[in-house]
């Protein structure tokens, strides 16, 4: 079950990104820095949509890859934290899964 305050992330709308060869390449226009995600990172990235929590994305990851639910959630949360630190994902306008607007 989701935490009442589980944050909802969305891709930073200012980014340019493309999937190529199973990997995701992201460019932050402000500094033209290139970021890359491997296949599982790309899977998580594709499902970061401002609607799904980390737990929901982790459940999708578990359905696609052979991985325990604990590791799927830990990996998803770790990647989201890293992406948020680089401003590649930002909090969605509706904030968190616990918001009354959801």
């Amino acid at each position: 079950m989701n935490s009442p305050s589980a944050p909802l992330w969305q891709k930073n709308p200012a980014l340019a990104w493309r999937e190529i060869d199973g990997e995701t390449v992201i460019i932050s226009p402000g500094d033209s820095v290139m970021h890359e995600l491997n296949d599982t990172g790309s899977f998580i990235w594709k499902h970061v949509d401002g609607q799904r929590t980390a737990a929901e994305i982790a459940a999708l990851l578990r359905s696609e890859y052979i991985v325990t639910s604990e590791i799927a959630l830990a990996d998803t949360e770790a990647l989201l934290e890293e992406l948020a630190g680089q401003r590649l994902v930002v909090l969605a306008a509706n904030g968190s899964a616990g918001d009354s607007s959801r």
Partner: protein
Amino acid sequence: MLDDHAGRAVPRPLDLAIGCVPMRLHFPGEDLRSQSLERYEGFCATVEPAYPIRFESPAPVLPHSADFSYQFEGASLRCDKVGAFFSGVRHAYALDTLLRILLSWVLLPRTGFLLHAATVVRQGRAYVFAGRSGAGKSTVASLAPAGSVLTDEISLLRYEEGQWRAHGTPFWGEFRAAGSNTSAPVAGFFRLIQSPRNSVRAMRPAEALRALLPNVLFFSTDTSANRRLLDILTQAVEQVPSYHLDFQRTQNFWEVLPA
């Protein structure tokens, strides 16, 4: 000489075509025009319609907001689809820099980009050797037969009529010679790595994009422009074979290149 609207004598415009992108430079004075005529001699061509570049000091206020603007060491440019204004251009070096920056933007709708790369034509096909300063671009150019070097510093790549072509540019590096105003279909992209041995290894498209991107000249921070650039580069690395090239400072490295 011509007269401007105020009756002052102004030099005749200079028409250039770099990578088949026609530009018309309306110089404010004869000095910069004559320096440019010498520097870009091989790239003078009149093709209509030419993209107009005007020089102003200080920078004029465009009648509408510019699509792209950039400042570099006191010089600046502002441009849109109709034309460009350069300001603060005091010498040929500044003009050269602004032309590179402008071209990087003007090429976007033409499915093209500028790359820090030497390009050598061999048997009618362009071998594009990418790398930053010190990677060996000028070394590759100096080892190539006379007349086969399109550029030793900045290559212009465009997707034209179903194929990627490399064009020479007048932007030279240590080779100290302007590039050749010709083009050839691209045989491959090669990431230069100086090495005691010669060997070549194919790169996957994602790997090629990773190798090329740091060598792409691009200055816009606009999101849509960056997305367009990424689309163009993705198309290029998916359609053109790319390789890591370990090479010695001898001509023998050609022996390991794919035919």
